[in-house]
């Protein structure tokens, strides 16, 4: 029989993969408005990292955030409902793809501002630790984010105050159309090391490798260690954003795309399962997602009269614009 840990990893990568494919379909059919940044090809990272976390650990993601939210344990149905802007979505339809959050399972939110989550996560984990316990946090970001000063400031703060945040850089080779070599002087791990943080590179296409390196880092952090960085090398299989299909940007050589796609985390994880186990997971995932699509599309649209609900946690009512 397959190792249950491998089954779990495969289930997660497969779930994310099929979730994204269905979401792209829903973008095409107009059910998801505004488009998404698909996580296709990068599933191994979220799956591997979150497999090494506890339920009470916290994560914060990016604009390309579906994988992080799902891997940490959010309900795919409520996640899909969120993408469709429904009242039964994770954020009651107020956030959408780039802000999906589920505080109940430790997802402090995807984030549409590149590089923003590092400092937020540092403060969150610091606050959690103040109350005791040994929670750790993960801040996901892309290779483009390491050029944002606010993220580098967060590296410094986390390192100085020894806040146990795992900084996970998903290096997919591009920030939109900008190749990483054109944007990053020096290396990504070198930047973390300069702040006195341990940093390592891992094959982001292999969820088990990601899980292992994360588990080691998390163990060190729980034992009192400070922040660390993992650079997970990966490749974005699809467009930067579904909108890109419309504008047809030309910036990745076809042979590079082919090479990148040849190392597919779904295949790599799937190969570790028996055919029967794999088929069972696949079927289970489809059932889950069939139900999710149904749940999402059946969800009520929020009432425009409530457009400003939740604007102020204090209960302040904003003056209208009309």
């Amino acid at each position: 029989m397959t190792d249950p840990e491998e089954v779990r990893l495969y289930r997660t990568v497969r779930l994310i993969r099929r979730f994204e494919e269905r979401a792209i379909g829903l973008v095409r059919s107009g059910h998801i408005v505004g488009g998404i940044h698909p996580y296709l090809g990068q599933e191994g990272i979220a799956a591997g990292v979150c497999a090494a976390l506890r339920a009470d650990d916290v994560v914060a993601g990016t604009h390309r955030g579906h994988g992080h939210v799902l891997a940490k344990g959010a309900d795919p149905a409520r996640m899909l409902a969120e993408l469709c802007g429904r009242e039964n979505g994770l954020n009651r339809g107020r956030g959408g793809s780039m802000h999906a959050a589920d505080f109940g399972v430790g997802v402090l939110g995807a984030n549409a501002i590149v590089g923003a989550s590092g400092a937020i996560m540092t403060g969150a984990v610091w606050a959690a630790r103040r109350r005791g316990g040994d929670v750790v946090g993960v801040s996901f970001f892309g290779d483009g984010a390491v050029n944002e000063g606010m993220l580098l400031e967060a590296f410094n703060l986390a390192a100085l105050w020894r806040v146990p945040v795992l900084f996970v850089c998903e290096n997919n080779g591009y920030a939109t159309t900008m190749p990483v070599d054109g944007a990053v002087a020096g290396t990504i791990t070198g930047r973390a090391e300069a702040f006195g943080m341990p940093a390592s590179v891992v094959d982001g296409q292999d969820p088990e490798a990601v899980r292992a390196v994360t588990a080691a880092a998390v163990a060190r952090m729980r034992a009192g260690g400070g922040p660390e960085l993992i650079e997970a090398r990966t490749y974005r299989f699809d467009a930067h954003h579904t909108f890109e299909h419309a504008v047809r940007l030309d910036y990745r050589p076809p042979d590079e795309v082919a090479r990148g796609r040849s190392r597919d985390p779904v295949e790599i994880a799937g190969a570790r399962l028996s055919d029967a186990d794999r088929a069972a997971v696949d079927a289970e995932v489809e059932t889950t997602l069939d139900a999710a699509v149904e749940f999402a599309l059946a969800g009520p649209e929020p009432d425009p009269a409530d457009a400003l609900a939740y604007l102020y946690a204090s209960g302040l009512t904003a003056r209208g614009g009309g």
Partner: protein
Amino acid sequence: MPRLSYRRALTRALADEMTRDPDVFLLGEDIRVAASNVTAGLLKRFGPDRVLDTPLSEQAFTSFATGAALLGTRPVIEFQIPSLLFLVFEQIVNHAHKFPLMTGGQCAVPVTYLVPGSGSRTGWAGQHSDHPYSLFAHVGVTTVVPATPADAYGLLVSAVRCDDPVVVFAPAGAMEVRADVDLAALVPVPLGRGRVHRAGDDVTVVAVGHLVHDALAVAEDIADQVSVEVFDPRTLYPFDWDGLWESVSRTGRLVVVDDSNRACGIGAEVIAGVVERVRLVAPPRRVTRPDGAVLPFAPALDRAVQPGREQLRAAIQNVMKDG
């Protein structure tokens, strides 16, 4: 006459200015492949030394432009998202804007900040749907919000030629507007000069950016009941007070429709600037985003937070009723 899109008008303005003045250059994210489709073709025409793709370092490249401007160039920065202006607020307001006065006139900072697709692009949600032009009017950075292709061309050209920093907001709601334009007749549009799109006698509607088109539609719609003058300030700072005072002095009534937040928005400024000077026959009205607006993701909510035609029509009818 050829049909010119607003987006292509921006492209054309950049190309013309780069041709005219070798000191003009562009920088921004993904502008070489023209992800926003505004800089299309410019890399090929002007080469990589004048079309610079930047790392995601908005603060640094904004101040890089300030430094480059101090030494005689004229940078144009394209920002992918309106809220990136929040991220570089310090660099624009505390540096680019303040250098000339603080140095006692030793320098100028002629940088253009171009935001193609400001305001709501339905579905981009809370952090990508801001319309922060009133902030720049408050700090006193020249701020333009063109409504039409010809104005997009003419105002962007003037922004590039201006010796001060200028923020150009190209509303998402206007980017797809097309108009029949005699290309040879495209000219610079002076900063600080408004435009009466439609003459009227009963009420002056001041409309900003893409809302000019909504205002025109509403005006047509109710033309049998009310004679509406539609005034497009085009530049929010400096504001064309003379033009507006002239209009409201005739109509005696004022409605402002503006896609920024209500409190301390340009809507407030227009009302204040008018009532200080002109006696109106009815209390003025504004149609704006609500106070503190954050655009929710769900399309119906997103729309509900933006000023709409129904609200504008109601406001016009109310000022007619009130006096």
